[in-house]
């Protein structure tokens, strides 16, 4: 029955592509999380009236973040080819997609992190200061802890955007479900392959969304 509906789908290829998509997504979500938290903290802390209030650093960080957010992802991949080649020693396959994926989504996540940190009650920070807390205590035990549900929520949104990015990266040779849909599906007029890939990508998105919501709800004690 399934073979009649999807005559051109080779299950082995589909699973390999799914694995590649998951690989790209998971690794780049981790990278985006780390880089995004650093950038987001920098944006927040150097903002006026905050712990490291510094107009110059804030301005530079904000500009970098804005510029990278402004570049369309497909163009960013092309621009980063020399950098990717230098870093990964290849410009093909899932591994080669990682630098572009991380650099493309970290600035977006950084803005979400900044918003999450701004939501932390200033009074709680003041209370920590009145207890004699060091800056790193305030960052790690107050700011990041108190904003955790929002940080997880933001990461879920970013991860789903990243799944979309992996498909775009696939079109120019990164592998994964996007690659399969484009090369074996669209190019060869195999609509069943395109459809199967779509179903798998949607399923992955749903799983990420559900997992994100679940974690976010679990850690929200407000």
């Amino acid at each position, binding site marked *: 029955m399934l073979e009649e509906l999807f005559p051109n789908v080779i299950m082995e290829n589909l699973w390999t592509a799914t694995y590649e998509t998951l690989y790209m997504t998971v690794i780049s979500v981790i990278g985006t999380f780390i880089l995004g938290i650093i950038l987001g903290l920098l944006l927040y802390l150097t903002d006026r009236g905050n712990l490291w209030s510094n107009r110059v650093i804030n301005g530079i960080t904000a500009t970098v973040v804005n510029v990278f957010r402004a570049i369309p992802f497909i163009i960013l991949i092309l621009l980063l080819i020399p950098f990717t080649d230098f870093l990964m020693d290849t410009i093909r396959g899932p591994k080669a997609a990682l630098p572009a994926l991380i650099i493309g989504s970290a600035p977006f996540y950084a803005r979400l992190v900044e918003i999450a940190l701004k939501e932390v*009650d200033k*009074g*709680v920070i*003041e*209370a*920590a*200061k*009145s*207890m*004699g*807390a*060091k800056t790193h*205590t305030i960052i790690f*035990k*107050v700011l990041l*802890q*108190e904003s*955790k549900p929002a940080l997880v929520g933001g990461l879920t949104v970013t991860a789903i955007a990243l799944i979309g990015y992996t498909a775009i990266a696939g079109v120019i040779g990164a592998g994964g479900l996007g690659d399969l849909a484009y090369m074996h599906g669209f190019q060869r007029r195999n609509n069943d392959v395109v459809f199967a890939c779509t179903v798998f990508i949607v399923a992955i998105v749903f799983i990420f969304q559900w997992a994100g919501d679940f974690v976010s709800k679990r*850690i929200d*004690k*407000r």
Partner: protein
Amino acid sequence: MISIKKLSKRYQTKDQVVQAVDDVSLEIEKGEIFGVIGYSGAGKSTFVRLLNRLEEPTSGEITLDQQSLTQLGKNDLRKKRQKIGMIFQHFNLLWSRTVYENIAFPLEIAGVDKQSSKEKVDELIELVGLKGRENSYPSQLSGGQKQRVGIARALANDPEVLLCDEATSALDPETTDDILDLLVSINKKLKLTIILITHEMHVIQKICHRVAVMEQGKVVEVGDVLEVFINPKEKTTKRFVQQLSPLEHDPERLKDFITEDESKEVVKLHFVGGTARRSLISEVAKQFDVYVNILQGSISQTQEGSYGTLFVELDGERKVIEASMNYIRNSGVEVEVVTNA
């Protein structure tokens, strides 16, 4: 214990300079509950934040136990802050931590080991009456319970002073009284100096030993609570005192009772200190052949004794009225005959 000299704080906003605290000098004794009262915008919130340098003073000096706070470096200031507890109007608890973890937080900051920390937290939970709620999150607590957590947290590092920033202003009257009782018991038990700021005279009257009245960044009046109550000098102070006994300053309503009739006399009784507890009115009614008709009045309990005013009408023979007034006077209560002026 705490000596504040010529303390000032100026803000530079876009189009003006705001003098939030203006040349304030105060001496606060060890073990006392010192109240600072003022309307919003009087600078009291800024004042209390200058004391642990959450706000940096523009000029002036603060010394705590002979040590200058204003000259401390960043690191020493952090250490010193561990010995200055603070509680807030909106509690400022970490919602991601349980009651237990919130109280343990200042101990983590001070680098206390897990075992000693546990002992201390358990002791504090007992002290503020939150036994059984250790594992609740702040969102599961009532306002009064949240402030109890705030108090326990502020006491964790055995502070020398406790700063209270409008600590009861977000609570209902009944909970306010509970929290105030807790502060008094802590003050007595731990001999802890408490500085509290508020806009409610009720709070000052109930727990403070001394009070400073602030207006436009300046301290306009300071003294023992009872003294300030009985004899307020400044207009702002008078307005605050009036909050508690609004009737006292309303002679209009007494007018109808004041007559030319010889057998009736309206008198104002002024209670100061311990005598207000005695059942003076019943004594008079029993010993003399007069009817005592209470018209209006109020008696307040302060930390230094009771204080209040009572307007009564004495109804009886002229001689007996005179005798009973003498009796009241001899019991240490001021008597003043009210006439239509």
